[in-house]
């Protein structure tokens, strides 16, 4: 699914406008086997002016040309066939150090530590707040 949304025009904030202009240049890939979750996240990110693309599986992303243009990867940890962490490792092995945000419905400390040691940027537990998500995205963008 590809959709390019325009961020809403801020009411009266020049800085906000500048931010939105910058966001529209950021391409985020969302990988989650749950359709509702990936659509909702895409909708949220688009409302912030990001370009968001959704994929139902790791394989779908790997086989897509969007992969090369991904500036930030948001991926669910628990997915059949290839987990989010495995996807991150594979991309790293291919020389693609895409800033990765892992999201999970089964958070546990050992997984978090393992993920962070693997170079994952953020490890968010569902349901996460908008601020937490955007904070991680901004960190990914800054990187």
């Amino acid at each position: 699914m590809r959709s390019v949304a325009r961020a809403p025009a801020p009411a009266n904030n020049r800085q906000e406008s500048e931010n939105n202009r910058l966001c529209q240049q950021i391409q985020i890939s969302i990988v989650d086997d749950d359709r509702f979750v990936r659509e909702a996240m895409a909708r949220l990110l688009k409302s912030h002016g990001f370009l968001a693309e959704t994929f139902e599986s790791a394989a779908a992303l790997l086989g897509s040309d969007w992969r090369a243009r991904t500036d930030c990867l948001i991926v669910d940890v628990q997915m059949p066939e290839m987990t989010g962490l495995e996807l991150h490792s594979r991309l790293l092995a291919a020389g693609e150090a895409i800033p990765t945000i892992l999201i999970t419905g089964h958070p546990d400390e050992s997984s978090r530590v393992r993920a962070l040691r693997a170079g994952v940027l953020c490890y968010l537990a569902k349901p996460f707040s908008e601020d937490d998500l955007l904070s991680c995205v901004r960190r990914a963008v800054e990187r």
Partner: protein
Amino acid sequence: MTTTAELRHSMTGDWPSRLRRIAAECLTGGVILAVLIFVGYRLGFGLAATSFICLTVLVLLSLRGSFTSSTILSAGAVASMAYIFTKPIVFNLRNNVTRDVALVIAFMVTTLIVTWLMRDIRKQSAALRQSEQQWREVFEQNPTMYFLIDAKGMILSVNGFGALQLGYAASELVGQPVTGVFFEADRALVQDILALCAHTPGQSGVWEARKVRKDGGVLWTRVNAKFVQWGANAPMFLVSSEDITQRKEAEEAVRRSEAYLQEAQRLGHIGSWAQDLASGVLTASPELLRILGRDPEKSQLTGRALRDSVHPNDRPLIDQVIERGANSGADFEFEHRIIRPDGTIRHVHSVSHPVFGDAGDLVEYVGTAIDVTERKQAEEALRQAYADLARASRISIIGELTASLAHEVNQPITAAVANANACLRWLAAETPDLEEVRAAAEAIVRNGARAAEIIGRTRRLFEKGAPQREPIEVDDVVRETVLLLGGEASRCAVSIRTFLAADAPEIVADRVQLQQVLMNLILNAIEAMKEVEGRREISIWSQITGGEQIMVSVGDTGVGLPPEQAEHLFDTFFTTKPHGTGMGLSISRSIISAHGGRLWAEPNEPNGAVFRFTLPTATTSATT
């Protein structure tokens, strides 16, 4: 019995021997008479005295001889005396010749009469002796014990058979008290009855009592006694006894058999009945009356009462069954309820058998009725226990899936939160994009509905209640179950794929129970693949088989079925899991069986296992 002709023959013998006997008698008698007449003449006795002597001798001779020889001897004696003591008639008559003639004639007539009388007496005596001999034979040999007992109860006589039956010689019993041959416990009765007979002479007293043999053996007898007095003889008891030991033993055997039958009926709560259709008379066993709540000692049962005991709601069914049975002539059985007089309801299993007469017409019904109330209650208790166990199993499964279910609910919540935030963002814009807002709001509604659906389905698994069978689509149940277990599958990195038959007919089943079966199979499949490194995939497909059944298959790529334990897979408490209860497959099989289906397992290709179950379609269920 000897006939008169045989008697006569026995007395007279055949003609040659008879002539020889007559000749011998005449010769012997003639010699004796000749001697007497000569002696009388020589001693001067005269005609009268000599006639008297000859008459005496002739009487004595007639006791032993025949009538013919007596007649001949009489004639010879008359002639001799007439010649010797009187002149011959044709020659000269002396004084008192008339007297002499009269004397001679009188002598002749007297001799003949006496001889005839003696002959008659001898005949009667012989006949009497013969008759006595015959009756004595009857008395002795008749297979009946005969006793002659005096008024004091002492045995005067006993026949040979009677003595033999008691193991005594007749002489051992004569002179003994008759009560001595009776069983001690029966002696008082014997004495009472003999006393009663003595008070009612000529009337028979009949009773049954035990006698004791010489060797101590006991035999039952039917005794007939009568107190009689013949002529001037002392009164006595005539007692005859018939051995009825076999009959008594047979009666006792029948009584024991009947007692055993009644006891067996009582223990098994089985009642029996028989109804004669012509008379309408119904015979019911005591146990049947107990089953119907009636007192066996006081109650009688009619056919009408039997039918009225049936629960009103079951009577139409019974009428149908009876009519079908009467038309077909075959046995028929059915279960129904009865209502006792006190209002309690019992469950009864009845079997009826029609009996036909020689002409082929229905003459009688016989049947049994078994009180199966306890069995029904036990079945209900078992069903309830099983339902409770199945529910406990479901709760256990849900407990194991807590994390997964929480994850499944978490997903729509996460989506709803994201959509809501997006919605607020769009509304906060200088120019709100209402389309985006609407899309976000609609997505929130869907997310909420999805969360509610998961919670609702989970809650139904906790519900306690009787199974609710209704027409459902198997594919819907498969989808719901996959939805519930999707999180668990994802957590274990297992993918679930479904291949559901299009336009599959409905089945009649309890949704929750069927879901429990699928959950069990899917969780087992996930467990089987936990240690598998390669592809972890569950395939679920449904297909129609033969148009009357739907088959659902759950296949995995796990470790497969343990070959040495394959036949125990569905046994209760059998498990391959370290912490398994061993109840899942057992309960699943019971659920499928209860729905009229079958559950079994096969190896999958190239690896893993496939669990399949069949269920009859709704149309098939309706016709069975």
